[in-house]
């Protein structure tokens, strides 16, 4: 059997494509969590981004407006979360759940008129280089700008957290809001900013799904990816580079099921579909078993409210 190297390259590229929304959402949530805020609304913010992007694209015809509009929609919806958890000091878990339920409902409501409309073609970069290098060409060239941004994001995020002053402030706020506050840092402001940033990235992740990956609007199309993104943050032990590895594993699981079905492997399709969720659980167990390591890498104030008058 001759294995076509370009075919292998195509499979790797498709795995990377399905990892994109996970990387975007996880990196966004990672910043939010690093500031000490646990936002379980990722799924809700993603689905809002998905419908906003698709609707804006259909109505305005402009891809740029659609992509930035989806990010803005993510920011707006996460503002509700930020206002509740930071200004009204509500419980992070319950507020995040409300955000997800609300997001799924409102996206389906808006999306009613957009079901069945075909998507637009999204421009790709470096298409001319597609046949130049065997194996590597399909991996490196011919993808959307969001794709390249997603694969750069973990490195940017890592640099931001480790090497920049603002990154240091974010970490300080997450690890010890009291001392950060005593140093004159406005904890509430930093957390607001990190939540809104997380919202923007989740919005972008959703837009990628509805505008580039699928590309059309399907109700509930995020299908649990938001929750897997949350699990990836734990998996990464809050280290953005590891998000890349995790997202590739889950992207791989998604792609493998298509190929297994295509070559006629006799495993029920439901089992293959369930695989990413089951693997998520197993991975979480393996990672969390070492409670000392988890405790050392978790932002110390994660999920705890901070109020200056306390």
């Amino acid at each position, binding site marked *: 059997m001759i294995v076509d190297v370009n075919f292998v390259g195509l499979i790797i590229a498709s795995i990377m494509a399905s990892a994109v929304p996970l990387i975007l959402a996880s990196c966004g949530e990672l910043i939010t969590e690093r500031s000490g805020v646990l936002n*379980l609304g990722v799924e809700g913010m993603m689905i809002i981004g998905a419908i906003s992007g698709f609707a804006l694209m259909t109505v305005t015809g402009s891809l740029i407006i659609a992509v930035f509009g989806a990010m803005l929609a993510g920011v707006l919806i996460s503002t*509700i979360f930020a206002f*509740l958890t930071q200004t*009204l*000091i*509500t*419980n992070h*878990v*319950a*507020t995040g*759940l*409300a*955000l997800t*339920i*609300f*997001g*799924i*409902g*409102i996206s*389906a*409501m808006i999306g*009613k008129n957009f079901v069945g409309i075909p998507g637009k073609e999204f421009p790709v970069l470096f298409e001319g280089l597609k046949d130049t290098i065997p194996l590597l060409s399909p991996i490196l060239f011919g993808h959307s700008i969001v794709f390249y941004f997603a694969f750069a994001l973990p490195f940017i995020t890592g640099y931001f957290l480790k090497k920049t002053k603002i990154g240091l402030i974010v970490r300080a706020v997450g690890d010890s809001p009291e001392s950060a506050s005593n140093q004159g840092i406005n904890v509430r402001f930093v957390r607001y900013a990190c939540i809104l940033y997380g919202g923007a990235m989740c919005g972008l992740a959703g837009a990628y799904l509805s505008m580039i990956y699928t590309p059309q609007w399907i109700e509930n199309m995020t299908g*649990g990816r938001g*929750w897997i993104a*949350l*699990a990836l943050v*734990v998996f990464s032990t809050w280290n953005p580079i590891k998000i890349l590895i995790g997202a590739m594993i889950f992207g791989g699981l998604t792609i493998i099921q298509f190929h297994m079905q295509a070559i006629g492997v006799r495993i*029920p399709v*439901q*089992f293959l*579909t*369930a695989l990413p*969720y*089951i693997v*998520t*659980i197993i991975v*979480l*167990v393996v990672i*969390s*078993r070492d*409670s000392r390591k*988890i405790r050392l890498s978790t932002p110390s104030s994660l999920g705890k409210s901070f109020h200056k*008058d306390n």
Partner: protein
Amino acid sequence: MIKIVKRDQPSKAIFFFTPVLAIFLTLIAGGIIFYILGFKPFEALKFFFIVPIADKYGFSELLLKATPLCLIAIGLSFCFKSNNWNIGAEGQLTFGAIVSGGVALLFYDQEGFFILPIVILAGAIGGMIYASIPAILKTYFNTNEILVSLMLVYVSKLILDYLVVGPWSNPEGFNFPETRQFSDSARLPLLFEGLRIHAGIFLALAAVVISWFVFYKTYLGFQMKVSGFSLKTAKYAGYKGKKMIILVFLISGACAGLAGVGEITGPIGQLHREVSPDYGFTAIIVAFLGRLHPVGIIFASLVVAITYLGAETAQIFMQIPKYTGQVFQGMILFFLLASDYLLFFKFKLIGSKK
């Protein structure tokens, strides 16, 4: 000038007042949303909240929907009171339905008084088995129960899908994704001729009474409350934390499993793809809206059940998409959490000074 002052103690009166406030605010916000969508707000709200329950049939439907919500929320209140975030009740409901449905199918061509109790018990056990997974992983492997219980929801729905399409599908069913009809002996009896409300409501009421007793009259209830208030205190007092985590998950899983039994052995009488319209998730809102109090949960389940009915009515009469129900549910929880601010802070009018 108005100043925000911290209360010395959370206000008890406001604790039970804020759910009412939250519902009121949700109605206002809902009216605004309807207005934006181009409907007359009052008319839309009437179709949403009054028309569906205006007659005998509607009221029976209300109880039918409130029953699983109440049952699951009671179970969840055990978890939430003791600081365990079980958000996978939907999965426990589904797995309970699978197990009890499987047992009911074993007896599909038999009659006998012994069948129904076994079917009900099987559902409770199914829910418990499924809830024990996040509980055990949390206690022995330190794994986040939120993510595990949620992932299991997707898995349970896929198992159900596999079963009703594949090995359990009705051999005479022309390949529809559903099982055989259960025998009458495996069905929860209907309470009134022509109405769909069934005996499952008694399971919910029993759960209410039992949980009230456990919460307020037993040492276990006290331990749960202390653990929920402060895990450190609970540890200091020497409570067996791991056992309690597993126990509350089992209770909550059993309740969700029973709700699953009600869904399949009540009006439907067979397993099919969608045993629950997300009752397991909505019940989380019910539990909070009811303030984790058994009586509060009864009222909350009735209020939230209306959003299910209202969404259906509004869709039929006004072509308002049925997801409005979920939007309302999300808003109720938002407003409830927001108005909790009044528990800890109050607004004080003070003379304007510079």
